[in-house]
C-alpha cells in the first residue's frame, strides 16, 4: 500500500488537476465556440495560439510561464501587486501549468462536438421564442456534452500527467508542486526505487481509469435517450 507521504502526493495531484480542469473547462468551451462558430479575421491565429502549448515543448511552455509569472515578469508583477503573493513554486502555479497544457486538447474535442450540432435545431428553438442566450444554454451546450466530457477527460488526464512545464515553471517542491509525475520522476532517478515507481505509476493509471469510467457514466446519463447509438 501507499505511505502517508504517497497519499499526500495523490491528493495534491488530484487537487491540482481538478482545479486546473475546472477553471479551464469554461475557457476552453468559450474558445471552442468562438473557433467553431465565429467568423473573424485572425481566426487561424487564435487557433494557432490555442495550440501552442501542444506543439511547443513543455519545457519551453514552462519557461515562458516562468518569464511571465516571475516576480518581475508582466503577469507576476500584477499578481504580486494585487495579492502580495506569487504562484511560483506554489500549487497554484502547478495548476496553471496543467491548465495551460490541457487547454488545446479540450478545445479540439469541444470544437468537434459544437461543429456537429445541427443548426436547424437552433433555428427551431429561435422560432419558439428563445433568444441567442437561451438557445445556447438549452440547445447548443447540451448537444455538445459528448465533446465537453471528452475534452474534460482528456484535459484531466493530461493535467494529471503534466511534467515538463510543471518542473520548469514551479520546480519540484514536495507537498506543494510535487505531483505524481514529478514524484515518479524523482524516484526514477534514485537507483533501487523501481518498486515505488511502479506503485505510483499504478496509482496514476488507476486515477485516469477512474476519470474515464466516470466520464463514460456521465456520458451515458447525459445522452440517455438522445444518442443515435
Amino acid at each position: 500500500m501507499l505511505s502517508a507521504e504517497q497519499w499526500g502526493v495523490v491528493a495534491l495531484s488530484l487537487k491540482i488537476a481538478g482545479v486546473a480542469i475546472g477553471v479551464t473547462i469554461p475557457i476552453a468551451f468559450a474558445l471552442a465556440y468562438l473557433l467553431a462558430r465565429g467568423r473573424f479575421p485572425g481566426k487561424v491565429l487564435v487557433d494557432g495560439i490555442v495550440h501552442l502549448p501542444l506543439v511547443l515543448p513543455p519545457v519551453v511552455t514552462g519557461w515562458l510561464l516562468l518569464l511571465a509569472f516571475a516576480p518581475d515578469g508582466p503577469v507576476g508583477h500584477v499578481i504580486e501587486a494585487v495579492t502580495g503573493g506569487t504562484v511560483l513554486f506554489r500549487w497554484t502555479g502547478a495548476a496553471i501549468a496543467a491548465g495551460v497544457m490541457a487547454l488545446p486538447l479540450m478545445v479540439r474535442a469541444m470544437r468537434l462536438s459544437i461543429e456537429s450540432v445541427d443548426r436547424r435545431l437552433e433555428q427551431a428553438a429561435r422560432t419558439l421564442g428563445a433568444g441567442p442566450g437561451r438557445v445556447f444554454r438549452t440547445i447548443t451546450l447540451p448537444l455538445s456534452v459528448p465533446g465537453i466530457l471528452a475534452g474534460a477527460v482528456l484535459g484531466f488526464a493530461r493535467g494529471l500527467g503534466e511534467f515538463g512545464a510543471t518542473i520548469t515553471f514551479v520546480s519540484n517542491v514536495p507537498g506543494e508542486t510535487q505531483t505524481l509525475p514529478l514524484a515518479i520522476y524523482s524516484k526514477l532517478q534514485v537507483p533501487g526505487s523501481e518498486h515505488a515507481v511502479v506503485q505510483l505509476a499504478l496509482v496514476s493509471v488507476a486515477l485516469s481509469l477512474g476519470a474515464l469510467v466516470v466520464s463514460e457514466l456521465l456520458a451515458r446519463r447525459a445522452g440517455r435517450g438522445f444518442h443515435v447509438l
Partner: protein
Amino acid sequence: RGPLVLAAASLQESMNAAADAWARHGHPRPVLSFAGSSSLARQAAAGAPADLFVSADEGWMDYLQKRGRLAPGTRATFLGNQLVLIARAGTHGSIALRKGVDLAGILGRNRLAMASYNSVPAGKYGKAALINLGIWDRVRPKVAQADNVRAALALVERGATPFGIVYATDAAASEQVRVAGIFPPSSHAPIRYPVARLKASTNPDAEGFRRFLLSKEAAAIFRRFGFTTR
C-alpha cells in the same frame, strides 16, 4: 559518424570545445548528449548503444559498473569542480558559508534552486554540504528542485529564486548570475567527473576520444572553463 558521448549537464560548453578540438585533429566530431547524470545513467544501464559516459559523480559510474555496462579498464576520473552559491547578477553582498549560517532566514519566503537532491550529482553534493553546515533541516522546505544543474541555474537567471547551488563552472558560464558564496570543499565529497567507455560501444573512434579527454590538450581546454584537472 563520431562516437556518441553521454555527458553531465555541467559539461555543456567545455565538452563541446573538447569535441571541436578533437575534430580539428581530423576525426569525426563526437555526438554529444547532455542531461543530468542520473538520466544518462538510466539509458546506459538499459544497454543503449552509446560510446562514452561522463558523470558528474562517482556514484552513477559505480551504478553502471555494478551492472556490467562499462568496458573493463576504461574508467578514469579526470575533472574536478567546486560547489558555489549563486545570486542574480546585479545584486550585492556575499554569504560566508560557515556552520550554522542562517541561509533559511536569508531566503525568507523565497526559495533555493538546486538540482534534484536525491539523484542528480549537483543536488546530492549540495545536500551533503548543507547537512555538513547543519542547516539542511531548515533549508530543505525551501528548496526548489530542478532536473539537472543547468535547470537550477536557469531558475536563478530568470529571477524565480534569489539563490541557487551550482558548480563554479556553471556560475562562470552565465553572465546573469554571480557567486555569492563558496562551499568549503570539506563540506561535501570531492566533486569528481569520471569517464568510461561503455560495453555497448561499437564506434572505432570511441577509445581515441576517451584518451583525448585524458590528455594534456583536453585538460587545458577544461581548465579554461574553470574545471580542475589531475
